């Protein structure tokens, strides 16, 4: 396995920033045609190591060690947060053509190259997408656009940081295949992922980090723990009465959506329709998982509930009262009752203030808590989510992807909401952190009757947490019912495909989703002691 020539080498890398060591003694050799995986819990230093390959370091960092890319040249990079790296004022097509022009001559061949890259990145309707601004894409679409950028670049080394987060199982398959194909073309790939299935399936070797230190190296099968089989929780008794009825006359309804039809402006007078007469309801303490393909309108629905998107017809009621469409019209109480956790957590933070301050404001503003009390509560909630005080006191820029994601959740939780809309909140988390987070949410449901609208691509997480699952396809709610039933016995062909693909993404479901949460595959000291 050491036969292929090394194209990039990292030796004894040590990065210190903010008075602590983020990465210590990392060695990495990337070889042509091979996929090297960098795994480890959230905050273990993966992104830091990867960025070192690009010659980038945190501000004010002290760096020692050697980073060498043989022959120089650009390194393809798929960043963890696609939302922030896409230029907000330029259309997708222009962004891609700009890269194409460094390699292809002539407009025609550029256009062809762009088109090919978009297709390779599994983007449907590329001709439509190139005309859009980045904010007009769903989270998963943005992610695929940055993948397309990396593909277009034609670099000999590609670093992909969580390239499959935000993708539904069907799309993820395609992206993963594409990465594998990339290696097949003789390109060295560094894959950073929490998705161990993917790593197992395509990586040639894996490096495991824990707290910035390498703790394992070798073929994935050796480095990663053995996977376990998917277990779907048996359906709750009595919940399976009428699978297609979204209301149960016996239980109270906390959140009710009626005939919601939403869209976005497109051009001077047109609108594109994204959601089509969606109706659903959530009972107190209930968790409704919302699944569907990337771009099917999940985020849009979530934002409608939260009052972040007001361009809809239909009605959103909370405990019987219709909520104003825009959150600007909502009272503090109404804001607190429906909270939303942003899919792009990083963009939702003010980069100028410490995370804990921002998190605490929710309690101050929405519950009238005293600032000191709010801060204590914020620190507690963050700690519960695995973010120690020193981490929380940094600005968002100095947090890892998974860390900001959890901070965003903490921020919403501090409102003690009646309904929490979570948009892909586990995508940046390793197994253990994910389990912790899901458990926290489960506890909240029990303790305070929190209702959840849980938007996810992670069917296993859905299975673990959700009472019911609703399936969106191209803006229509095609199926909803008890979680167990949907996962085991889907009625719609689309749902069936989705479930099958989820199961088959790595031929096995993520083994770490079930069973003993503490006994997950990731070694290292306990989370609370990480700082």
């Amino acid at each position: 396995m050491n036969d292929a020539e090394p194209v990039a080498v990292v030796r004894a890398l040590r990065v210190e920033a903010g008075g602590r060591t983020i990465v210590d003694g990392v060695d990495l050799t990337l070889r042509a045609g091979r996929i090297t995986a960098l795994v480890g819990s959230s905050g273990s230093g993966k992104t830091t190591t990867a960025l070192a390959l690009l010659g980038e370091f945190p501000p004010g960092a002290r760096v020692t060690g050697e980073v060498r890319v043989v022959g120089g040249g650009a390194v393809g990079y798929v960043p963890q947060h696609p939302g922030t790296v896409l230029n907000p004022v330029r259309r997708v097509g222009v962004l891609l053509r700009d890269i194409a022009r460094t390699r292809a001559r002539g407009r025609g061949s550029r256009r062809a190259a762009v088109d090919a890259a978009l297709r390779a990145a599994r983007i449907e309707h590329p001709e439509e997408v190139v005309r859009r601004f980045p904010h007009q894409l769903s989270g998963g679409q943005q992610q695929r656009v940055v993948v397309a950028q990396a593909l277009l670049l034609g670099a000999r080394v590609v670093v992909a940081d969580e390239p499959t987060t935000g993708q539904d199982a069907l799309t993820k398959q395609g992206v993963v295949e594409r990465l594998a194909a990339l290696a097949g073309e003789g390109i060295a790939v560094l894959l950073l992922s929490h998705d161990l299935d993917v790593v197992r399936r395509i990586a040639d070797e894996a490096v495991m980090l824990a707290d910035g230190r390498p703790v394992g190296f070798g073929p994935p099968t050796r480095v990663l723990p053995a996977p376990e089989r998917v277990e779907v929780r048996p359906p709750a008794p009595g919940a399976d009465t009428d699978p297609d009825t979204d209301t149960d006359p016996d239980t109270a309804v906390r959140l009710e959506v009626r005939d919601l039809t939403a869209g976005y402006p497109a051009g001077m007078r047109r609108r594109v329709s994204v959601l089509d007469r969606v109706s659903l309801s959530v009972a107190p303490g209930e968790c409704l998982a919302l699944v569907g393909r990337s771009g099917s309108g999940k985020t849009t629905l979530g934002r409608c509930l939260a009052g972040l998107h007001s361009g809809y017809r239909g009605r959103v009621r909370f405990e019987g009262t219709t909520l104003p469409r825009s959150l600007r019209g909502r009272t503090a109480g109404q804001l607190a009752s429906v909270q939303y956790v942003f899919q792009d957590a990083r963009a939702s933070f003010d980069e100028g203030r410490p995370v804990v301050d921002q998190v605490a404001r929710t309690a101050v503003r929405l519950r009238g808590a005293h600032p000191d009390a709010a801060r204590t509560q914020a620190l507690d909630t963050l700690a519960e989510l695995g973010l120690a005080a020193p981490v929380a006191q940094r600005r968002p820029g100095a947090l890892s992807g998974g860390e900001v994601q959890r901070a965003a959740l903490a921020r919403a939780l501090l409102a003690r909401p009646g309904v929490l809309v979570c948009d892909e909140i586990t995508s940046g988390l390793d197994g253990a952190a994910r389990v912790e987070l899901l458990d926290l949410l489960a506890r909240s449901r029990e303790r305070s009757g929190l209702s959840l609208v849980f938007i996810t691509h992670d069917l296993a997480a859905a299975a673990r947490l959700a009472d019911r699952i609703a399936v969106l396809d191209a803006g229509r709610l095609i199926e909803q019912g008890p979680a167990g039933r949907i996962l085991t016995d889907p009625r719609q062909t689309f749902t069936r495909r989705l479930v099958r693909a989820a199961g088959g993404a790595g031929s096995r479901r993520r083994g770490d989703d079930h069973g003993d949460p503490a006994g997950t595959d990731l070694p290292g000291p306990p989370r609370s002691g990480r700082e």
Partner: protein
Amino acid sequence: MNSTPERPRRGERAGRRYAVALGLIGLPLLIALIGPEFAGPVQPRAVSFSAGEGHWLGTDFAGRDVWRQVLLGGRSVVLVAVAATVLAYVVAVPLGLAAAATRRGWVAEALMRPLDVLIAVPSLLVVLLVAALFRPGPAELVPVIALVAMPDAARVVAAAGTEVAARPAVEALRMQGESWWRITVGYPLRAIRRTLAADAGTRLASALYLVATAAFLGVGVAPDAADWAVMVDRNRPGLFLQPWAVGVPAALIVALSMGTNLAFDTALRTPPGGRGRNDERR
């Protein structure tokens, strides 16, 4: 690609730059503040624009000692122009940002369209009218100058704030039920601080010279007042006879304006350190 990790310490250089900026501001400010104490009594007039004879910077258009005028002439400049600029932004920032943040089209129009009308009115007319109707002194001149500067500033603020107001971070603030002030002004203000500083820095000089124009039309300070801007304006016929009478006050104004701008630049300098990582994590 070998990394060259150690970056030079830049604190020292920033310190030096501050020193330059503060020196540039300090001299005019010092003269403005304590100059009048050292001005001494009124001296008999000499021939205008003459040099020598005990006037080491010569005499001005009305035969007065230029140095004495310089010592006396900073207060009104600094007070009026700075106060007017500050006042203009105190109004323009919330106004512009509110227009940028509002979702209701008519609110934005109601806030901004009247300003367009104001912009279209020649300031000459405004000042003339104010002069005729109110005969204001320096203190009353402040709002007049602010009124002339405010619509422009509000537009720049609104333009800079438009993009900021649509950021997800602002959505998150709304989600948290933050106060109108923090959502509309507090957060965006930080985001546009560089633009704001650049804009305000250049508007200060304009305010200064508007003081001079206004003075000539009978508003604010007297047209022969000891005021740097007025001195620059009124001593121009003697530019070649007695350059100090224009040169010294002009240099002080330039220093003040330049120092302010450089201080802003230095204060807002990108912190030293790696670019990329910082960026990926905004």
